[in-house]
């Protein structure tokens, strides 16, 4: 469905100067600052997959999405989305993809939601009959009925996001890009968005590329994630493999020149053991030689694993 190879995007802007006459020097300079937002990203996404495309702010996520959707032209590398080069076949590509930017609505601000949806239907040449069935399905699935006739500017964020999701799938694209679709939403609204994504993926075999900072989204939706930072891929694979690590026992001992065999103290003065099978035995063996002040058990979770990868 998506094939990305050696994707690189370098932004080039005139160097800015500060100090006296700085503005003038900025205006006439021929020196440029180059910043690569994406530096040699390669990955593939198969039909029907839901992948999490993750990374810290400024990692290059949005730039990648903007290239995949045809908004930006890359500096080098190749991209093929459903057999098309997005920035070269913009119009044709647009028909294959639905896009939701959580930070920015795609709807017409001053018009009732239903009119925005009708306009989207016209722009994508959706025949009247198909529009009607599509709309009916979405009204049920997203509970649009309460605010279908409300101008978009008066919608709550959760309602607006549901409206945006409806607009993105109205023409039944085989591919969906969701850029932070749950940002700023309350727990219930987040749940509604997640359920909708699951449903769309399940019934329509829709491929979904999701960027988010909420790892609960990822855990609920994705089986595979791609982690990027500084424009490079750090990890690409199944979440299960990532979090498939032993639980850990964290122990704090009464002060003293205690040396526990085989384990050294971390910066906070704690001893960390991997738990393999015999937890009571492990605790007993420590307690036999030392006085335990406190202990806790840490489950492997996505957040700490990802933090670990970024820190590398």
């Amino acid at each position, binding site marked *: 469905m998506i094939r990305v190879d050696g994707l690189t995007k370098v932004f080039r802007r005139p160097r800015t100067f500060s100090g006296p006459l700085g503005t003038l020097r900025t205006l006439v300079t021929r020196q440029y600052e180059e910043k690569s937002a994406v530096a040699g990203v390669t990955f593939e996404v198969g039909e029907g997959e839901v992948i999490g495309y993750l990374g810290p702010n400024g990692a290059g996520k949005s730039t990648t999405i*903007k290239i995949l*959707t045809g908004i930006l032209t890359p500096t080098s590398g190749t991209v093929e989305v459903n057999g098309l080069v997005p920035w070269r076949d913009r119009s044709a590509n647009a028909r294959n*993809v639905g896009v939701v930017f959580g930070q920015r609505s795609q709807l017409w601000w001053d018009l009732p939601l239903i009119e925005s949806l009708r306009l989207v239907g*016209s722009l994508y*040449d959706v025949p009247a009959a198909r529009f009607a069935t599509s709309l009916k399905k979405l009204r049920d699935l997203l509970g649009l009925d309460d605010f279908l006739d409300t101008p978009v500017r008066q919608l709550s964020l959760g309602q607006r996001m549901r409206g945006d999701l409806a607009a993105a799938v109205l023409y039944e694209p085989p591919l969906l890009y969701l850029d932070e679709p749950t940002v700023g939403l309350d727990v219930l609204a987040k749940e509604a968005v997640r359920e909708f994504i699951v449903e769309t993926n399940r019934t329509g075999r829709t491929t979904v590329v999701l960027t988010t900072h909420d790892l609960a989204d990822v855990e609920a939706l994705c089986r595979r994630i791609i982690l990027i930072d500084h424009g490079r891929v750090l990890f690409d694979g199944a979440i299960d493999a990532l979090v498939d690590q032993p639980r850990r026992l964290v122990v704090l001992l009464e002060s003293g020149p205690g040396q526990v065999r085989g384990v050294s103290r971390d910066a906070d003065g704690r001893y960390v053991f991997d738990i393999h099978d015999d937890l009571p035995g492990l605790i007993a063996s420590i307690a036999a030689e030392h006085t335990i002040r406190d202990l806790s058990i840490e489950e492997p979770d996505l957040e700490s694993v990802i933090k670990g990868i970024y820190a590398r």
Partner: protein
Amino acid sequence: MVEVLRALRLYVLLQRASARGAMQYRLNTVIGILCGAVWQGTGFAFVWVVMTTFPSLAGWGLAEIAFLYGLRLTAHALAMIPMISVNDIQWVVREGEFDRFLLRPLNPLVQLMGNRMGIAQFGDLLVGVTLLAVAAQHAHVRWDVWLVAFCLAAIAGGALIEAAFFLALCSLALRMIDTFQLRVFVDDVFSKFGSYPMKIFGGVVEWVLTFALPVAFVAYVPASVVLGKLDSPWAPAAPVLGAGLIVLAYRIWRRQLDHYQSVGH
């Protein structure tokens, strides 16, 4: 051709939608149209006052100047009614709204043009057409089908010349170059110099306004032809210039679009 018809149909649809949006602010709309009409009306009222003291400017009588003024204003209004929304381009780009246009299967320029309806420009059109209609009867012109057709072509050509300059300057905003002040200046030149007989400005200015910035071709040259004041063999071809310039401007737009950088989150 099918694609052009589709774009036209969708443009009308988008404009209707933006008009419906604008109608929610009804008073704004009324004020907008009135302001346009009053603004342009006072412009001509000033000429009228001057002409009561000097009955002739560079050999042009009041009716003739009214005809020229009306021709320019009508062309201006017809250029700006669809183009005014392109004027918003630097905000549209800065707010990231332009990204949305690139995500939809319709020419982004058509979407930008359909984004907002030029309201005040309908006031311009009202004054322009009224002036033209009244002046055409008082200006001692023997009207026939060909002359009327030439007039319509001249209006279209003039509108295209203004639209072309406007589009070329606006397209630079795609590379974050702000040409707003420059556009205000060019618009000013078109309206201040384009609405009067070039001869009153004399020599160099007349040459510049004819050949460097082709203000003269918007209304002055065609009006002179209609009023029998100009007999150069190339003058009747004035309307063609607009068609050439708009093609050029569109190419510049496409060129700039390839360099579009979007904005951060």
